[in-house]
């Protein structure tokens, strides 16, 4: 059909000048519009056209204003006005006449009137008010055509506030006997739903009636509304799944009248609409998905014909299959379909294939591997759209191993793309990837340089901000920070020495800031030289005044030494009379600070750590204001949770269980984190995790802990091994570690030059192997739960070291040691090898010679000092925890273990730690976790060859209740024997770490009484026990507890389900009981031994875990939160 049209159309333009041809018969030469159009086509210049149209409009204006003009003439005039407006000439004088025509004309004139109104008037145009009455009248007309026109205009342009006026009449039309009216009414209501959902709230049941309408057209129209409603709340419409499936079955089976066919495909629009609805309903819902498998299979099978429209259906089918709960044989078919698309010679299909791949690749990276050669070809496609889509796909499969190649491709594209929207989007993605996976400093800085040069002034402002923040906050290693900053300085100096005039303003600002802050790191660099370079920027014509102020700030930080000061003086002199007040201000500052180096050092401390800026978070400066307001009768401020509580107490009958009341209050008060999620905001919405999205709507989907994981990093975790996988020949390439990535380019160019064609082919394969690195299935790491094969290089420093932590740190060990060892990577390996079920245990270690033992420092130090955290469930050394370097104490410990009282065997216990020794005695201890208490077991080992008498041991603690268990302490200790004392410990008041001090006195045969002192420190977490409560119980308890603390914790975000993963770590390490996880929130309960409960509410917010703890025991929440932080940091 289209061919015929095209042939005819190509022949026609020539007809314009040949009136005698039959084609122009309908264009009567006497028509005024006809002559106007003709007149325009004869003109040669835009200027002439303008003159002609103005003349035309003038004459129209005269005629419409004349009282003698009939409605029929008016209609003709309106058509001409529409034409003039379409050419871009304004004719606002005619608007009122268009409304008049719609009001007063006969049906046909009215139609033109409505058309003119809908083309002329904007939704917010005031004249629209005049239309309401006309529409009301027409809606009630007995003439069907008038009703149709009114409904059309209503759906086209009615503003929100005018809907109520006509809503009842439109609603009434849902019961109209004519299906065309019902259908238009449904579509009009759909439009209302889009602009003002609240106003059509009450007619939801009528939508259901429309869905069941006997006319398929009306039913189809109602699906638009349903798609929208289901998108907002899929839970509410699960019951309709069966109906939708039945409808789809009938459509696919060809049960609809022929009228609905499109190129002999039954109702494709309807099919696609239904597929979309089904995918929304089946998402994350196995039982609902189950219902649709059959019809999806049939849709796939029936859509076999080779026509665009069937491809459209297939594409939608594939998307649906990959969205709903997976079924393996459907997935296989869908994957095949995607393959057909990707391999198709038709460019539109290829595009859709790439899109589909992008959609599924996060779940099934293998699919990308299968098509890697096609993807490479698409990367070099002459059509930028295809190229762009390929990059989108690559963005999704980027990892630490292929990041350099992919980013290079993206930058390549950016250099040729001229489209701003594209640039903004892609530049953001490059910056995101660079920060996430940068293999080394040089690459990172160079990539960011390109980003800034290309992104220029169109990129999102949070890219430079986030970059500078990254530089200034630094990472975990001071040395790394220094190197990165130094590299940036070097790179910028050379850029400024080149042609700074070509750099975008934003980049210059970044450069000035970095030089101002960090150029001192480059030792061989005179600050005066930097100053001169910066001063050059001030002289450049195209520097904006914002850039100039950045430059001034940088210069102020840098001016020192006589040479520097003289440059500064010179510059400030020039600008202190600038017309720009900001610049003048900056110049003044520079002048004054350059003269007073002492003051300068105070105002702008070198390498100043931004974190030390004192912020009065208590807002004490507002005290006066507050007391004034209070005196004037204002109500005192109550924190949100308190308000919530009072509200709950005020209710006599609380019908809301915990799960309802709490999240509301949490969300209002949990924004304590100041770190903006910049990275999240700048990447496109597409990059979000699909599971996250499903939680956004505050859905009540219950995420149970033990739910089987269907999707892993590897895709669908079923046992089937696709045949293609084994057939897939991976191009052998040396697997490069991230550190070797910079060699990527050189190895790329080292392609052997055998024959040109072969070389080209090989080059592609090489590219493929570097692009798809890290995607192959041979990395079993992924399944083990360690999701990122390589650690993220630029891991932002954990910012919120709260005060309680800092205090306790200094109590335990020297702060520097803690700083260095915090988050020590060595720990990761030792702790992840922890067997799943073992309760939290801490290794203990002798740190000081005089016998003070500190379990807490030992935890952080253990990786460095070579002892292994022993996590023994029983007396033997745990086999899963092979010691890489055998501790000297180990054999002794093992034998001491055998002295552990029988009743304590099998309980979780810490490693045996030496307490103190002298030539005759050695004391060791461990603690064993019992249900209701903690037992301290002290082993007294007589290592001398004589017996010891009158042994007396005393154990005491300020923080703990200590009671001796079992027999009274031993009196006599034979040579080379071991005695065991047990003490039951309970907590008096919670502290982060508690300490037991003791003394042992004894008598050797020859010597008089000897004394030996010891102390044993243990973390509060050993007293924590899981508290098994239900959600309801939790709710009641929550409201009863008064001591609370809030804090943001690091989220373990490299897992599929960050919340569940984080809570699991806490469960394993601290024995917390996870009560329930609902969407992005979780509740956790524990108790300090038996009687002191502590509840924890966690919520994922802005990439961190906002936790809120409550307990009846003061200090317990604070202590617990410290241990949570520790547990997560060391994870």
């Amino acid at each position, binding site marked *: 059909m289209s061919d015929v*049209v*095209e042939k005819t159309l190509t022949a026609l333009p020539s007809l314009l000048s040949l009136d005698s041809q039959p084609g122009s018969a309908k264009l009567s030469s006497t028509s005024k519009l006809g002559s106007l159009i003709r007149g325009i086509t004869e003109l040669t210049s835009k200027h002439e056209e303008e003159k002609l149209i103005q003349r035309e409009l003038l004459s129209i204006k005269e005629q419409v204003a004349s009282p003698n003009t009939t409605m029929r003439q008016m209609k003709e005039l309106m058509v001409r006005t529409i034409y003039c407006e379409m050419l871009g000439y304004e004719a606002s004088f005619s608007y009122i006449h268009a409304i008049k025509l719609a009001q007063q004309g006969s049906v046909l004139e009215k139609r033109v009137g409505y*058309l003119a109104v809908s083309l002329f008037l904007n939704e917010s145009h005031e004249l629209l008010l005049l239309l309401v009455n006309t529409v009301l009248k027409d809606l009630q007309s007995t003439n069907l055509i008038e009703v149709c026109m009114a409904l059309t205009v209503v759906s086209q342009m009615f503003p929100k506030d005018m809907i109520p006026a006509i809503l009842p009449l439109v609603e009434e039309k849902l019961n109209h006997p004519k299906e065309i009216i019902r259908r238009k009414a449904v579509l009009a209501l759909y439009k209302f739903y889009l602009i003002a959902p609240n106003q059509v709230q009450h007619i939801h049941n009528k939508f259901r009636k429309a869905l069941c309408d006997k006319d398929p057209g009306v039913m189809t129209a109602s699906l638009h509304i349903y798609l929208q409603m289901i998108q907002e709340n899929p839970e509410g419409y699960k019951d309709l799944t069966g109906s939708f499936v039945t409808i789809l079955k009938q459509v696919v089976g060809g049960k609809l009248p022929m009228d609905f066919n*499109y190129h002999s495909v039954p109702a494709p629009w309807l099919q696609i609409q239904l597929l979309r609805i089904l995918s929304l309903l089946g998402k994350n819902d196995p039982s609902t998905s189950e219902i649709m498998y059959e019809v999806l299979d049939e849709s796939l099978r029936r859509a076999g014909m080779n026509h665009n429209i069937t491809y459209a259906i297939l594409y939608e089918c594939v998307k649906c299959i990959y969205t709903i709960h997976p079924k393996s044989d459907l997935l296989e078919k869908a994957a095949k379909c995607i393959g057909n698309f990707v391999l198709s010679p038709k460019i539109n299909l290829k595009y859709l294939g790439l899109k589909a791949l992008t959609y599924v690749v996060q779940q099934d990276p293998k699919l990308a591997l299968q098509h890697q050669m096609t993807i490479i070809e698409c990367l070099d496609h002459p059509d930028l759209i295809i190229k762009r889509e390929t990059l989108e796909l690559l963005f999704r499969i980027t990892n630490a191993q292929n990041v350099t190649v992919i980013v290079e491709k993206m930058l390549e594209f950016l250099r040729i793309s001229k489209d701003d929207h594209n640039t903004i989007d892609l530049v953001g993605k490059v910056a995101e990837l660079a920060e996430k996976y940068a293999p080394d400093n040089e690459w990172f800085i160079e990539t960011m340089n390109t980003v800034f040069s290309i992104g220029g002034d169109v990129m999102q402002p949070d890219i430079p901000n986030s970059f500078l923040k990254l530089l200034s906050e630094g990472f975990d290693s001071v040395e790394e920070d220094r190197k990165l900053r130094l590299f940036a300085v070097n790179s910028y100096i050379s850029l400024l020495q080149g042609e700074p005039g070509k750099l975008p303003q934003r980049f210059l600002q970044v450069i000035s800031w970095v030089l101002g802050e960090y150029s001192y790191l480059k030792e061989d660099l005179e600050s005066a030289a930097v100053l001169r370079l910066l001063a050059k920027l001030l002289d450049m014509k195209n520097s904006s005044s914002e850039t100039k102020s950045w430059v001034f700030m940088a210069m102020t930080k840098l001016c020192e030494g006589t040479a520097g000061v003289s440059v500064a003086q010179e510059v400030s002199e020039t600008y202190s009379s600038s017309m720009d007040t900001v610049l003048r201000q900056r110049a003044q500052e520079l002048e004054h600070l350059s003269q007073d180096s002492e003051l300068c050092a105070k105002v702008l401390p070198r390498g100043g750590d931004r974190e030390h800026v004192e912020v009065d978070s208590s807002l004490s400066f507002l005290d006066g204001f507050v007391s004034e307001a209070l005196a004037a009768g204002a109500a005192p401020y109550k924190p949100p949770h308190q308000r919530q509580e009072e509200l709950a107490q005020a209710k006599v009958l609380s019908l809301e269980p915990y799960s309802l009341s709490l999240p509301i209050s949490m969300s209002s008060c949990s924004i304590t984190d100041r770190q903006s999620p910049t990275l999240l905001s700048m990447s496109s919405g597409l990059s979000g995790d699909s599971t996250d999205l499903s939680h956004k709507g505050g859905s009540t989907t219950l995420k149970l802990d033990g739910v089987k994981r269907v999707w892993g990093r590897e895709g669908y975790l079923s046992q089937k091994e696709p045949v293609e996988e084994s057939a897939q020949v991976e191009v052998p390439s040396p697997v490069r570690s991230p550190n070797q990535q910079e060699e990527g380019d050189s190895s790329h160019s080292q392609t052997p030059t055998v024959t040109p064609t072969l070389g080209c082919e090989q080059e592609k394969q090489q590219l493929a192997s570097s692009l798809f690195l890290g995607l192959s299935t041979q990395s079993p790491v992924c399944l083990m739960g360690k999701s990122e094969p390589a650690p993220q290089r630029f891991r932002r420093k954990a910012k919120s070291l709260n005060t309680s932590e800092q205090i306790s740190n200094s109590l335990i060990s020297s702060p520097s040691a803690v700083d260095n060892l915090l988050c020590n990577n060595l720990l990761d390996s030792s702790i992840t090898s922890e067997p799943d079920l073992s309760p939290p245990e801490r290794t203990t270690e002798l740190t000081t010679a005089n016998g003070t033992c500190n379990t807490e420092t030992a935890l952080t130090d253990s990786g460095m000092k070579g002892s292994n955290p022993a996590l023994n469930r029983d007396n033997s050394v745990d086999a899963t925890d092979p010691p890489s370097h055998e501790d000297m104490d180990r054999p002794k410990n093992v034998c001491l273990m055998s002295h552990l009282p029988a009743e304590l065997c099998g309980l979780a216990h810490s490693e045996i730690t030496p307490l103190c020794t002298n030539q005759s005695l050695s004391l060791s201890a461990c603690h064993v976790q019992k249900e209701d208490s903690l037992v301290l077991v002290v082993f007294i080992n007589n290592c001398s060859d004589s017996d010891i008498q009158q042994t007396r041991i005393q154990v005491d603690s300020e923080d703990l209740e200590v009671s001796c268990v079992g027999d009274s302490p031993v009196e006599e200790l034979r040579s080379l024997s071991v005695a065991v004392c047990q003490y039951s410990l309970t907590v008096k008041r919670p502290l982060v770490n508690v300490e037991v001090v003791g003394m042992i006195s004894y008598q050797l045969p020859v010597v008089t009484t000897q004394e030996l002192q010891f102390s044993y420190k243990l973390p509060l977490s050993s007293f924590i026990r899981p508290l098994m409560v239900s959600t309801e119980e939790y709710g009641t308890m929550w409201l009863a507890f008064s001591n609370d603390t809030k804090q943001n914790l690091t989220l373990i975000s490299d897992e599929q389900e960050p919340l569940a993963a984080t809570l699991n770590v806490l469960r394993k390490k601290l024995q917390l009981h996870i009560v329930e996880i609902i969407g992005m929130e979780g509740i956790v309960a524990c108790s300090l031994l038996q009687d002191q409960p502590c509840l924890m509410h966690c919520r994922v917010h802005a990439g961190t875990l906002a936790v809120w703890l409550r307990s009846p025991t003061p200090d317990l929440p604070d202590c617990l939160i410290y241990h949570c932080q520790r547990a997560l940091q060391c994870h």
Partner: protein
Amino acid sequence: MMRFLLLFSRQGKLRLQKWFTPMSDREKKKIIRDMTTMVLARQPRSCNFLHWKDLKIIYKRYASLYFCLAVENQENELLALEVIHRYVELLDKYFGNVCELDIIFNFEKAYFILDEFLMGGEIQETSKQIVNRSIEASDMLQEDDSSEWYEVELFG
């Protein structure tokens, strides 16, 4: 959902515009300019889909006329292409071998057909017969109309 439909000639002259969401005149002008430059710059035989801001542009050329439809991001591109095609078929059926001139001289008819085919940015009626019947029904009312330039051959 569809956002707008533009018809323009190879010279970039606008022939028909339909906006499904409210937009200011300035925005409309900018969009028309952007679309014509973007679409006219495309090489033949390249992909029929384009990105523009957060929208997808689906365009197709029929003889000297470009049809350019903007849809929201999650829409199916191939289906949008068929929307354009069906519209062309509807015009073809109504005018009988439609050409650009038909649309220039009888653009209001083209609008009426479009209003029967699409409504509120969604497909309303896909059947050629039914769309034609309703246009025909309205046209019948002007049988007695003697205006000479409205003499339209109804069905080929």
